[in-house]
């Protein structure tokens, strides 16, 4: 595209080098190597308990790896938080919490506003735009707990987008929404990938493989070839049991992941 390289346009947006994470002396992640470039759209699939959420939390700096290095635009994750947008698995918030849609989304501007400073005109414009992007502007003054599951998810997407991230991390984003909402959601991601890199983890191979550009399989170890092609052998290694593959058009591969 002939753009001038800036720090944010560093060719290696995310770099994980031999990352190991242990929980109670059991390895959760083993020797993860991963590079994510600007505008990559990576789906990571794997069984429950395979370390998907842990991997995201490592990139977010919420979990420090026991071994290895994590760099976001060449910096440790804790120093790169202003470029990361995060949509957690199921936001475990108190449904009765006294807060409305607008204030939840504004919260996502914190990294730009900073300590002691109030949210300004710029932040409010960004919040309005983010809410418009997810078609939730009309419900801006509704208390968040009164929204449906799909609407809540859109609010949390807006909260992640409002900070204008370069890297969007999503944890099982379609776990609690119906099929229609899922389709809308992936269409939104299609648009978003023009301006940011996206990492999406899910155990839903079928849905993920249609939309993402690259797929990695994670079960403590990451099987990742930098392409959307996954073969039966990789899936079998990931899930620890043979997976039945159905090859649709566009090389889409779906299967029934072994649960647990």
């Amino acid at each position: 595209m002939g753009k001038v390289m800036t720090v944010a346009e560093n060719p290696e947006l995310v770099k994980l080098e031999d990352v190991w994470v242990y929980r109670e002396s059991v390895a959760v992640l083993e020797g993860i190597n991963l590079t994510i470039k600007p505008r990559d759209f990576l789906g990571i699939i794997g069984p429950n308990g395979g370390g998907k959420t842990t991997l995201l939390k490592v990139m977010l700096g919420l979990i420090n790896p026991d071994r290895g290095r994590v760099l976001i635009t060449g910096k440790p994750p804790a120093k790169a938080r202003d470029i990361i947008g995060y949509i957690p698995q199921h936001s475990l918030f108190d449904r009765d919490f006294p807060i409305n849609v607008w204030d939840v989304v504004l919260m996502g501007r914190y990294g730009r506003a900073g300590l002691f400073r109030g949210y300004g005109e710029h932040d409010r414009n960004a919040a309005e735009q983010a809410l418009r992007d997810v078609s939730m502007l009309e419900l801006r003054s509704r208390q968040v707990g009164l929204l449906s599951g799909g609407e809540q998810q859109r609010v949390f997407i807006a909260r992640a987008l409002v900070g204008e991230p370069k890297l969007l991390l999503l944890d099982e984003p379609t776990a609690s929404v119906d099929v229609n909402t899922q389709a809308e959601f992936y269409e939104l991601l299609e648009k978003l990938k023009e301006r940011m890199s996206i990492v999406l983890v899910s155990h839903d191979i079928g849905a993920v493989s249609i939309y993402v550009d690259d797929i990695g399989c994670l079960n403590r170890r990451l099987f990742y070839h930098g392409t959307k092609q996954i073969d039966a052998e990789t899936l079998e290694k990931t899930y620890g049991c043979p997976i039945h593959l159905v090859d649709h058009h566009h090389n889409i591969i779906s299967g029934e992941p072994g649960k647990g």
Partner: protein
Amino acid sequence: MPEILQYDFMRNALIAGLLASIACGIVGAYVVTKKMVFISGGIAHAAFGGIGLGYLLGISPVLGALFFTTTAGLGMGLITRRTKLPEDTAIGILWAMGMALGVIFIGLSPGYAPDLFSYLFGNILTVPPSDLLLMLVLDVVIVGITFILYKEFLALSFDEEFSTVIGVPVEALYLLLLGMIALTIVLLIRVVGNILVIALLTIPAALARQFTYNLKKVMLLAILFGALFTFGGLWLSYIFDLASGATIIMLSGTVMMVSFGLSRIRKQPGRAKEITKVKS
């Protein structure tokens, strides 16, 4: 009620009640929304150690309590954040140790401990003017901090993990919040005593939450309710010649339970309607 206002102690009591309500309304809103009632109870009971220390050293028990509540609050916060000890266990231990220290200190103090009962259960009628000044200063500190850090505390209370991700200094703010709880408890000790403090820290805010989904309004309503409860409790205790602190608590608790009962009857159909409307 005018004739009771002729007395200085009664005017002081009303000022004390108002000053206490400001702190407990604001801090109580966080205690209730962030579900910090148990840790607040722990800090309040640990205050007894400081009251005992005050008697032993011959200084004001309120100052001793201030030292103990802040130490206990920060201690509980750091232990639960940085060690693997479960939060409720850590709170339970410090809760009991604070009270045990109080008993030991009072035992070591020469002679009889005057007014001990008023620190345990409060006596708003004996608040000296010097304490009113201290309460005013603590109120200014609490209001100031909340004003400056409102958006940070809101993020922290709503979603701690996300707050960390967006760079909110979560641990420092949590400890600051515990410090504010500690200050509020000291402020309330004169009014209702350290055993009953937890009621004034939770009831006005919990009641306010039934009427609004806006945290700022929860705070303002909680201040209003706190003031009404202290004034009303004081008045009832004067009429029926009852202990003022305990009467304030009984009035607050009764109103809370009645309101909760009414809201269950009133809210249920309305809320169900709201949800179906959203889904359609």
